[in-house]
């Protein structure tokens, strides 16, 4: 059961492959973040160069999925046909303290009308869409 209705755009890796290990990791239930091999700086979104030391060498680090709400919004107006009549939903921007405070986006699971608190602790959960073509898995967030 997905948080939002089916029919929204399916994510696919960028055609240069810069973010493919993230999407592959999510399919396995692992949260992967890019990290500079030379200076160890985490970075997100995926990019080809380290903004700190300008090294092109990087690896992908599996992280715990512990996060903290940095900001949020609650869309009500449906801008996509799949959301017509669905009602409000919550989007959170989450900082990952275990990964240099990079930020990731997702929905906050639970009551879409819940009170959302900036600073609240959250945990990554995986939402597989096995029947989508091509199949994908979204990283979502739940309050802990």
């Amino acid at each position, binding site marked *: 059961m997905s948080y*939002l209705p089916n*029919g*929204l*755009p*399916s*994510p*696919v*890796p*960028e*055609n240069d492959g810069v*973010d493919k290990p993230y*999407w592959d990791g999510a399919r396995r239930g692992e949260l992967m973040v890019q990290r500079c091999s030379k200076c160890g700086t985490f*970075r*997100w*979104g*995926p*990019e080809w160069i380290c*903004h700190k030391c300008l090294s092109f060498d990087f690896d992908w680090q599996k992280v715990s999925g512990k996060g903290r709400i*940095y*900001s*949020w*919004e*609650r*869309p*009500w*107006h449906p*801008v*996509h*046909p*799949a*959301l017509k009549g669905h009602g*409000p*939903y919550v*989007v959170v*921007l989450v900082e990952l303290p275990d990964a240099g405070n*990079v*930020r*990731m*986006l*997702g*929905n906050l699971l639970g009551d879409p009308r819940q009170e959302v608190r*900036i600073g609240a602790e959250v945990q990554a959960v995986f939402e597989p869409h096995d029947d989508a073509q091509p199949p*994908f898995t*979204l990283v979502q967030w739940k309050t802990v």
Partner: protein
Amino acid sequence: MSDRSLRGKVAVVGVGETTYWRHGKSPHPEFKLALMAILAAAEDAGLDPRRIDGFASYSNDRNDPSRLAAALGLPALRFSNMNWGGGGGGGSAAVGNAAAAVACGMADCVVVFRALAQGQFQRFGAAPPGGTASGEPAFNAPYGVMSPAQRYAMRAMRFLHENKIAPSAQRAIALASYHHAQANPRAVMHGRPLTAEAYDESRWIVEPWRLFDCCQENDGAAALIIVPAEQAKDFRHKPAYLLGSAQGSEHRNGARVHNAPLYATSSFTTVAPQLYGMAQVEPSDVDVVQSYENFTGGVLMSLVEHGFFKAEEANDFLEPENLMAPKGRLPLNTSGGNLAECYMHGLELQIEAVRQVRGQSTSQVKDADVSMVISGPMVTPVSSMILGSEATL
């Protein structure tokens, strides 16, 4: 202070616009709208349109200068320029780019224009159905983050949270725009005033923004004509001289997937000081401001970053009467702006800034010698500009 500056080098001598329609309602195709606005600006200046030799625009305007030059029968095309970036962030940058071309002799008479016919093309505030998303959209669209409002609400939410901004501050910005539109017969919302109660009762688009916090979407076109300062008095109206123009954004503002280190920003923290430096004015010298309303929260942050008040003063400063011409402390969006005149992707704000300098606004500020435009908060690049009367040179 570098002596490499645009200050006083060029002037806006003509402004023109089509009728402004609700989105999808233009009886004309987009390219024709662009031509109509350009000819209106030439007529306003009293200038033979065949003198035009360059074009500048932004946000991937679809009406390319070579087709415009051919359609208008121009003797020669000498300058064609597109400022990168989406949204209205390039509005003032396009003026700066045109000014730079004129100031350094690449061209003599450059048009800045923007045309939109959203019935002919896709709306900004509606997403196409189905399909796949890759790159930046892959990290947004599957979570229901697709429209500009959804893209930027989290920036504003963080700013409102950090600075304890009350809902009344955003409301004041909406009320000022609607108030000024009631005096402006060109405004799409002319004759449709907005009350504080109606604002409070309006539906959420995306929290923290209600319906009236969000710009309209419209059809139409707007154009300005820029010439060297030494020719500025040859035309029909009082010239509006460019005192300064700046564009860009701060350190890593464009980091992908909402990872700008300074997230709660309208992107002007480095741009505004450049603007004031070139224009050689202070915030307290500015008589009237047009500040691009994609969303009211963006205007609020823009005004803070341009030094009109501190974030912690926003709740007190942003009272409707402070923002209303002619007597307010900071008359804001005096034509009605994107919210209530027309969402001409912000270029109607440049036109209004010129009209203020000329003394032709429908909500005129007395002795408006220094007239500012702030374009496209929260996107990157953003831009802003300052126009001045002859007295400021």
